[in-house]
């Protein structure tokens, strides 16, 4: 019964006194697969930062039933300096850090593990490249490898499909579906149409959070949740676009 991993209760959070998330509650349980959707600036990334303990909420509580180090994290691609002198192998290795000295202690013994993970995301051949020599999709795969190498119990992914080609996107979701047999996943995406077959529930985030315990959602419900996003379905044109409602 007690398969709760993290509980957010009435969390209000933001930056420098400016509120981004208001009165947000969410429970993450073992083997959940939650799709997090919402408009740009709606607070999806901020929600993940609160979950990861990277920012403290202004009010409300975050209760952890698993260790914070058991969360694997794939940040939204954007803040990386692609000229930074680091290799793919090293980036993935950094996923094994667990404290200040762990990297030094384990480096030799974990090469096999790194190669295995790189194999599973299809970039083993690139392990000695520096990250500046990667395409966007290859960088995204590197970040996925870094997120999963520590065998986390919860995997938190911030738009992992950015820059990824269609072929790897399908592969990515297949990998996630397989991983979901043993761990829970929180997946931020703009593309609810594509992730819908894989996820089990939906969290609409636009300042407030509306939890929707099903993998399908209608335009009407999105409207009720005040969550103005496009429902994109690959291959189906034209898209239906939902008008933004201001309260």
């Amino acid at each position, binding site marked *: 019964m007690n398969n709760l991993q993290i509980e957010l209760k009435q969390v209000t959070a933001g930056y420098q006194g400016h509120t981004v998330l208001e009165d947000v509650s969410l429970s993450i349980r073992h083997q959940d697969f939650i799709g997090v959707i919402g408009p740009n600036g709606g607070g999806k990334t901020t929600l993940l930062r609160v979950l990861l303990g990277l920012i403290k909420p202004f009010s409300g509580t975050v209760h952890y039933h698993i260790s914070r180090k058991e969360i694997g994290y794939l940040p939204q691609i954007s803040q990386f300096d692609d000229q*930074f002198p680091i290799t793919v192998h090293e980036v993935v290795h*950094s996923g094994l850090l667990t404290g200040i000295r762990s990297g030094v202690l384990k480096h030799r013994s974990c090469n096999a593990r790194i190669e295995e993970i790189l194999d599973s995301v299809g970039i083993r051949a690139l392990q000695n490249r520096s990250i500046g020599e990667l395409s966007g999709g290859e960088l995204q795969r590197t970040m996925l490898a870094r997120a999963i190498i520590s065998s986390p119990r919860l995997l938190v992914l911030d738009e992992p499909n950015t820059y990824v080609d269609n072929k790897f996107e399908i592969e990515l979701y297949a990998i996630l579906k397989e991983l979901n047999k043993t761990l829970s996943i929180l997946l931020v995406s703009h593309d609810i149409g594509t992730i819908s077959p894989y996820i089990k529930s939906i969290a609409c985030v636009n300042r407030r959070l509306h939890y929707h315990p099903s993998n399908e959602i209608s335009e009407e419900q999105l409207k009720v949740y005040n969550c103005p996003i496009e429902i994109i379905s690959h291959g189906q044109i034209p898209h239906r676009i939902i008008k933004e409602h201001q309260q």
Partner: protein
Amino acid sequence: MEFFGLFEYGFFRNAFSAAFLMSVTCGIIGTYIVARRMVFISGGITHASFGGVGIGYFLGVPPIAGAAVFAVIAALTTENLTRRKVLRNDSIIAITWSLGMAIGIIFVYLTPGYAPNLMSFLFGSIITVTLADLIFMIALTATVSLFFMAFYRTILYLSFDEQFAKTRGIPVMLMNYLLIVLVALTIVLSIRIAGIILVLSLLTIPQNTANLFTNRFGGIIIGSIIIGFLSSVIGLYVSYVLNIPSGATIIFTLVVMYLSGRLIKFVA
């Protein structure tokens, strides 16, 4: 005078030792600064330290000690204000940079008589390095080397992605503050060699030369140490033979090394 004959002079032995020690320290710290794009912050710390030089003259304490205090305060302040987003990062740097210089200028002016060795703080003077300077350099080189050896992976990974390192349980803030203090102290002791005006080149040119040939963090450190040491010794010797300022000659040698590196890369 033949190169090895110079070792008979105490001043040259000191200069040679200083060149070696600071090449190691600057090789390591410079790689950190360059990789993390902290060159401008380092410029701010460097110039802020002049405030301490001025107060040192005024109070009659060693100016280098004043410089160290000012550099560390400037480093911690810049780091803290940047984190808290009180002001734009580059504006904070410009303010500490010029405020430190202003304090220095006022106190040098207020100091009765003349300020000995003022020029050596501005332009460096490796040939006047004293035994006391060397002792500080040995202590700093040992500290920096051991710190980076012990925490090499942690430093590399947190520099690449601080947020991620935090999620892995690394005390990121503590490490950032410790590292910026080491940066400040490295700058202050390097001022003995190249002076406030020229010191940044010791922390950036060897790194960029090494970076022509390797993309590895560790590779850049090793390469920078070798390039920095060769350039310092060559610059020192040339400055002695031609009787021109040592700091400027060392910088000039570093640039020649960089351009040769580019040429080798272009030809190869």
